[in-house]
């Protein structure tokens, strides 16, 4: 499954990295502590977080995440967005709480395998 189908299914708004939405998703990871995400997430994960600090872009690109979903109506901070646009890291936003986003995503991923 790619990011694009998630964007459609969960009605996400894309804030950056529009050209990277064909990226294949391998898994999901949730966490708001950068050190934890650095240590434990995997390449190809879509990362669900509330953290809007610019360092999320660095973490996502270092770990080669498929993209970042900001939940609960949070928006990337200004310098976060600039970095993400420059680095081509997809940031998507949702008004739903993290639990709902994960639940729906998990269901989609398990359906398509």
């Amino acid at each position: 499954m790619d990011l694009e189908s998630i964007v459609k299914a969960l009605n996400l708004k894309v804030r950056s990295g529009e050209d990277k939405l064909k990226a294949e998703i391998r898994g999901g990871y949730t966490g708001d502590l950068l050190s934890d995400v650095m240590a434990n997430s995997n390449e190809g994960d879509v990362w669900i977080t509330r953290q809007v600090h610019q360092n999320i872009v660095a973490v996502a690109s270092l770990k080669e995440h498929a993209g970042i979903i900001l939940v609960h109506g949070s928006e990337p901070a200004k310098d976060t967005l600039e970095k993400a646009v420059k680095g081509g890291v997809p940031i998507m936003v949702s008004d739903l709480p993290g639990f709902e986003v994960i639940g729906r995503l998990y269901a989609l991923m398990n359906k398509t395998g």
Partner: protein
Amino acid sequence: MTLHEIRKLLDAEVLIGEDQLGMEVNTAFVADLMSDVLAFATAGSLLITGLTNPQVVRTADVLDIAAIIMGRGKRPSQETFQLAEEVNIPILTTKYILFEIAGRLYARGIRGCIEKVGSK
């Protein structure tokens, strides 16, 4: 879902609250940021987190959270454990990552706390 069923579903270990496993929960909140929890989580919900410090228990207590689920195989520190015993909040720990925990619970009908508390 009861805590009892949740323990099974998540292959979790109950560290505190063996006597409260009959408790029913319908909603959950997942976060590592306590201010986020404080802003949105509703009373009677599950708190799913990767944190283990005493502030997790304080936050849960302030909000009347039903139970805490610690993911990624995390275990509470000694102080956290003591505080949770004091305020009598169940703590479950499981080796699954938060994504897996939330995904499984959602599949079994648990929903997010959508209601925004306070006067947003």
